[in-house]
């Protein structure tokens, strides 16, 4: 028999008799045999101690129970006591409300023995209980892969995980280094973990889940870490931080202190700011008293190193501007945050408000240009909305308020529509809407709405006491959903109750009283006026709290929930793409084909553009009687009005495809759709290839057989494939595995490039509109920057990329004579510095690139296929190919793909390019300065390039396609 167990699990408990057995069982049920349990009962009064004793009696030699003589009020003393009693080689801590994974001890001991580490740390998962049950891993980025660190100094990120529970400590290490929890402060974990990390000679990390931290949904029984609200906690936390600073100083670990301070700003401070909005004045004052000196004492570099919005919040705390700090903190933590700050613009940079711009380092910290808030679509922005007045005249009431208009994003001429909405908080589908009017008023937008609650809102009464107010605002078709906030404690609003008639008669209430929610928003509560109401409600309350009623109610709620989830599942199943494709293949495609129907799609429905657009226009111009459908993804804005529009993936879309005589697109209709013989599929493709395509791409070569076959089947649907040169036939056709007839007509989208816009009034109008919209009428040279797709981690497009050169420098050096339009690949988004719009403008929102090519006097690109099109215009081209940064590992994977790569183009760009190929900014600007030289030096190369890759582009492609398929006696497919 071994004398010492491998692991001692110290379970601490205080008044938790209900959950303690679960925790102890998880420690006893380990796959590792040699585990002993030490239960430390912190002077509980509810039978926890007895439960512990029962375990000790049932498992002699494996479980011991000790009882502290008096309650310690924290976790420190019980844990210290447990360590003193532990006999195992290693120690782990477990709280009575949490559990260890079944394999935790074995994993920890294995890692410790393999690496010889003093301290092994594994993944902790927070399991949220209650109706919204879910699990969230705790700092998963630290636990992507196993690792061994000789010192925490090599990997200071570890300090982010300050829990003491998901770790396994060598017991002698704790004793030799005198590592103990402090006993008089909360957040003892933070200090203990910091000391342990620093003292450990070797630290091992394993990606395994070892610990489950249960988070209760109801705050009735707040655990210690849940009681953020209490100021003492903040005082404790700050004291702990000061002590940690001392520890770091003692170890000479300045880097760690910096990293910890950054974490304090990024994480800890935000937690407190988060629920500050609902606190009273006194609380806020005390908060500021505590937090301000600490924040002011942070190193100057801390805020610069922290994430921008938390840094702004901390900066505001340091300036004593709590309101501003709360706004920034909220913006940092919410997915679609409310923008309460008034963004300002100075010299091309966007700043988070005017207030503190000139104090100290304000300019640097408040600069939020890089966040791209100014470039976000309106729908991803929630401008702060406040109710300013609620007036009642008789039975009618009128609500007025203001919606902020950051940086004038809602233009003066915008079409504004919308309504104020009252929504039953418990049944969100019960809403009542009141039309609202909008008007620009100074920097903001005013809204007014008549709230005719007496007639229109009919609450049931008693079951639906709370109604939230929201403002729906449509700006030129974009729908913004805004919570209505209250300013100045709701003066002018909260004192005005609205009349209402509940369905359960007036006994249930007579008016909706406006009040301010914890988050500071406007809501209404149903209140009774009559004398009868209160006793009636009291009786109901008594009934509601009776156990029988609660049981019945819970049962009802559960039944309702499961019915709802069943309905949702059924709906998902019925509307799933898989279902639709199956129905398409088995049912819809048996419907008769309707002669003369054409379904058009460009770039998977994202745009009205490219070859399909120009074929469609030619059909219209030639007056061919076709019934045309255009597929759109997202918004139908910009699609032709004389075509039937179908949303990609909708039933209407599949119906249209099933019955169409022609499919015309440039990328691919949904994989898995079987095209029948009677339908002719014209694949126009979206550009000649420089980059490898299809089976020439390593990713597809490496794919499984099933994946390859899926691709092949999708391509085999083509009946006709448009090519513009022998180059296409050599590259695209074999690369994609095209088996269709090749139609060497050239690209319809390039007709205007060859022929110009003359003779096409529609295009001329489009160009004039575009010129006006982009403001290109001042005679400056137009530079179009159109780079190709930029893949981020995992091959997905980069969500928001900056420009790979200094736009400000372009504006300063060349902005006098030139203006740059930036058009990223249609899947990418580029942040164009807003303040430079006199010289650099975004053109990513313009769907069709052809008019942009016509407007541009010079093209700058990297590997985009627009090079082949633009060459037809015989204007200067510059190839800007800065070296790409090392790709970061894709999410969910710890390693970046390695291995040598081939250059990955169909030809050597440097040898064939019809313009200078430059790799750095200086050379790019140099070339832009000498456009004449570029034009002259490369004239020969340009002609050769255009001839080579645009062989069949003779300006008659659209007509040729229409003649081939829609002309008199045309062959079909």
């Amino acid at each position: 028999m071994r004398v010492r167990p491998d692991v001692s699990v110290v379970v601490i408990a205080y008044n938790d008799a209900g959950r303690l057995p679960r925790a102890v069982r998880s420690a006893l049920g380990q796959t590792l045999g040699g585990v002993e349990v030490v239960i430390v009962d912190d002077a509980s009064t509810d039978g926890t101690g007895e439960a512990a004793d029962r375990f000790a009696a049932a498992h002699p030699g494996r479980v011991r129970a000790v009882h502290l003589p008096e309650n310690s009020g924290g976790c420190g003393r019980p844990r210290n006591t447990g360590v003193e009693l532990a006999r195992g080689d290693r120690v782990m801590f477990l709280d009575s409300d949490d559990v260890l994974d079944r394999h935790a001890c074995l994993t920890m001991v294995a890692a410790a023995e393999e690496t010889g580490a003093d301290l092994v740390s594994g993944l902790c998962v927070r399991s949220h209980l209650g109706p919204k049950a879910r699990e969230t891993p705790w700092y998963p980025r630290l636990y992507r892969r196993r690792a061994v660190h000789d010192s925490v100094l090599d990997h200071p990120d570890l300090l982010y995980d300050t829990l003491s529970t998901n770790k396994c400590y060598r017991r002698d290490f704790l004793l030799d280094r005198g590592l103990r929890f402090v006993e008089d402060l909360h957040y003892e974990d933070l200090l203990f973990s910091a000391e342990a990390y620093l003292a450990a000679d070797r630290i091992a990390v394993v990606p395994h889940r070892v610990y489950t931290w249960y988070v209760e949904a109801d705050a009735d029984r707040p655990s210690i870490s849940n009681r953020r609200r209490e100021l003492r906690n903040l005082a404790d936390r700050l004291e702990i931080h000061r002590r940690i600073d001392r520890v770091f100083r003692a170890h000479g670990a300045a880097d760690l202190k910096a990293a910890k301070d950054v974490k304090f700003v990024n994480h800890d401070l935000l937690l407190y700011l988060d629920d500050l909005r609902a606190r009273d004045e006194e609380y806020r004052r005390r908060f500021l008293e505590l937090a301000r000196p600490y924040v002011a004492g942070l190193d100057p570099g801390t805020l610069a190193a922290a994430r921008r919005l938390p840094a702004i919040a901390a900066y505001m705390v340091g300036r004593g501007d709590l309101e501003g700090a709360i706004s920034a903190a909220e913006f940092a933590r919410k997915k679609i945050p409310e923008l309460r700050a008034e963004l300002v613009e100075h010299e091309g940079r966007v700043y988070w408000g005017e207030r503190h711009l000139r104090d100290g380092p304000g300019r640097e910290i408040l600069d939020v240009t890089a966040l791209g808030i100014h470039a976000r679509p309106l729908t991803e922005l929630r401008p702060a909305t406040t109710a300013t007045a609620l007036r009642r005249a008789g039975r009618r009431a009128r609500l007025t308020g203001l919606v902020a208009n950051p940086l004038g994003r809602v233009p003066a001429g915008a079409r504004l529509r919308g309504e104020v909405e009252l929504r039953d908080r418990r049944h969100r589908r019960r809403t009542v809407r009141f039309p609202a009017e909008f008007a620009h008023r100074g920097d903001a937008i005013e809204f007014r709405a008549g709230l005719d609650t007496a007639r229109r809102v009919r609450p049931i009464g008693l079951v639906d006491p709370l109604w939230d107010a929201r403002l729906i605002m449509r700006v030129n078709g974009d729908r913004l959903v805004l919570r209505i906030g209250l300013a100045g404690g709701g003066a002018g609003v909260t004192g005005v109750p609205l009349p209402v008639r509940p369905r359960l008669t007036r006994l249930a209430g007579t008016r909706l009283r406006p009040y301010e929610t914890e988050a500071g928003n406007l809501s209404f509560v149903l209140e009774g006026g009559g004398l009868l109401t209160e006793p009636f409600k009291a009786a109901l309350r008594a009934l509601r709290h009776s156990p029988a009623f609660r049981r019945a109610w819970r049962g009802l709620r559960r039944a309702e929930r499961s019915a709802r989830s069943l309905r949702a599942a059924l709906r998902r199943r019925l509307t799933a793409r898989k279902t639709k494709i199956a129905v398409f293949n088995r049912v819809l495609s048996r419907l008769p084909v309707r002669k003369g129907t054409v379904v058009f799609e460009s770039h998977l429905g994202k745009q009205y553009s490219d070859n399909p657009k120009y074929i469609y226009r030619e059909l219209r111009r030639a007056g061919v009687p076709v019934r045309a459908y255009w597929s759109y993804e997202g918004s139908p804005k910009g699609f032709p009005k004389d075509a039937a529009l179908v949303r990609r993936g909708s039933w209407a879309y599949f119906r249209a495809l099933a019955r169409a005589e022609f499919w015309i697109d440039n990328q691919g209709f949904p994989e898995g759709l079987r095209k029948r013989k009677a339908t002719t599929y014209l694949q126009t493709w979206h550009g000649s290839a420089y980059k490898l395509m299809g089976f020439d791409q390593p990713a597809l070569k490496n794919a499984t057989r099933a994946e390859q076959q899926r691709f092949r089947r999708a391509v085999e649907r083509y009946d006709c494939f448009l090519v513009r040169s022998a180059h296409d036939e050599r590259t695209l056709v074999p690369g994609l595995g095209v088996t269709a007839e090749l139609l060497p007509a050239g690209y319809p989208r390039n007709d205007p490039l060859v022929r110009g816009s003359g003779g096409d009034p529609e295009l001329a109008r489009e160009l004039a509109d575009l010129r006006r919209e982009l403001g290109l009428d001042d005679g400056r040279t137009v530079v179009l920057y159109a780079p190709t797709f930029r893949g981020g981690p995992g091959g997905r497009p980069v969500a928001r990329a900056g420009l790979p050169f200094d736009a400000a420098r372009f504006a300063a050096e060349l902005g006098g004579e030139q203006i740059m339009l930036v058009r990223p690949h249609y899947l990418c988004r580029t942040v164009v510095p807003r303040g430079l719009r006199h010289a650099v403008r975004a053109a990513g929102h313009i769907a069709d690139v052809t008019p942009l090519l016509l407007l541009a006097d010079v093209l700058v690109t990297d590997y985009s296929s627009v090079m082949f099109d633009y060459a037809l215009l015989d204007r200067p081209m510059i190839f800007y190919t800065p070296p790409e940064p090392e790709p970061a590992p894709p999410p969910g994977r710890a390693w970046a793909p390695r291995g040598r790569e081939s250059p990955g183009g169909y030809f050597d760009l440097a040898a064939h390019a019809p313009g200078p190929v430059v790799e750095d900014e200086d050379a790019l600007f140099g070339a832009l300065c000498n456009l004449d030289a570029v034009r002259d030096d490369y004239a020969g190369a340009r002609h050769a390039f255009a001839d080579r890759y645009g062989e069949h582009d003779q300006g008659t492609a659209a007509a040729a396609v229409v003649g081939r398929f829609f002309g008199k006696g045309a062959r079909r497919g």
Partner: protein
Amino acid sequence: MADARGRGRDVFIVCNNVEEMGGVQQWAHGLARLMSGRGHRVILVGITRAQVPHDFGGPYGEARPYKVEHLHETWTLPALPWRPRTFRARADVRARLRDGRRAAAVRRGAERLSELFAGARPGGVVIVAQVWAMEWVDLARTRGLRVVGMCHESYQASRRSSRYARVRELYAGADRMLALTAEDADAWARDGMANADHMPNALHVRPGSVPAEREPVVVCVGRLAHEKGVDLAIEAWAAIAERHPEWRLRLYGTGPREDDLRAQAARLGVAGSVEFAGVTADVPGALGRASVFALPSRQEGLPMALLEAMAAGLPAVAFDCAPGVRDLVADGRNGLLVRAGDTAAFAAELERLITDPALRARLGGEAPRAVRRFDPEAVLDRWEWLFGLLHRGLPPLTVPPPAAPRGATAPALGMDPVRDDRLDL
């Protein structure tokens, strides 16, 4: 106390089949032989038998030092339990009956397994080499034994196949789940398998034996199947073959795609320089005669062929298709790694080796050192350490695991599985 017993444990190695010719079988017999050498009593269990059993005798045809058992003489029933998805499928009475027969057969097999396990002394271990076999082990009585499940392929490869769901379901209850490399184990752990660990394959040839004569041959050893990517090797070869007429690409192995591959070689005009050498019993000899090793696989676990090639001092060009490959080849030091599927780069690296004997010598000279940690002794030590860990201390009490609260399931931190239509066992 288990540790005191140390040597001489009862070890059961359970495979789908231990008689067919295949990588897992070779591994199982090899491990059984090695463990027997350390004094363990090994019983190799096959769920089914092969029609024509392969002889897994020792190098010199000596008798097996371990026992071999089978649960079923033949297996004609469906491979997997019946999981009807639609209402119509549920109404299929014949399938239901067939599944009933299948379940009864599995129970009979598991009963046989229980009998075998019952003979084990305390401290025994069951190694389940393939997830299909786990269904039997799960039903069998394993009291007093520790169960270890193994995954002989990369995490990504599992993920793309139907095995993924079965590994998650059946191995979740195992005391340990072993992947081939630490990186794969980490991937499983991230995916919620808290029992994931790793155990490399043992190398059965002694590294570092320098061959006398090298021929101008690029050698490739593997089944001629899609996932082994031999078509990619031929494609790469076609790009350089013309410039090196004295060199040959020699393919060992056979498989379903052989005809396609011959046709491909002819189409690309390299039929003359690509040799289909068939199956060889003497892999070390075949490797010893070649100058360069190519691993064009699309999917791998810890490729034994690459391991053996490196042990034989061959410089290798390999697609970076799995952690097992990265684990072996340090690019530029003991071999060359190429982005998976990038045949142009593969061709370029092959050509570099073909034209640069000094590079071949440098990489090939370094290669045996890199595979020393797969030495049988080292791998056996790791196995025994794991056995000790699993049997350390008192056996755990029979307490039911804590009931998971509502909605709390193992987190799937990775992506959704990409399932292949194929069904591999």
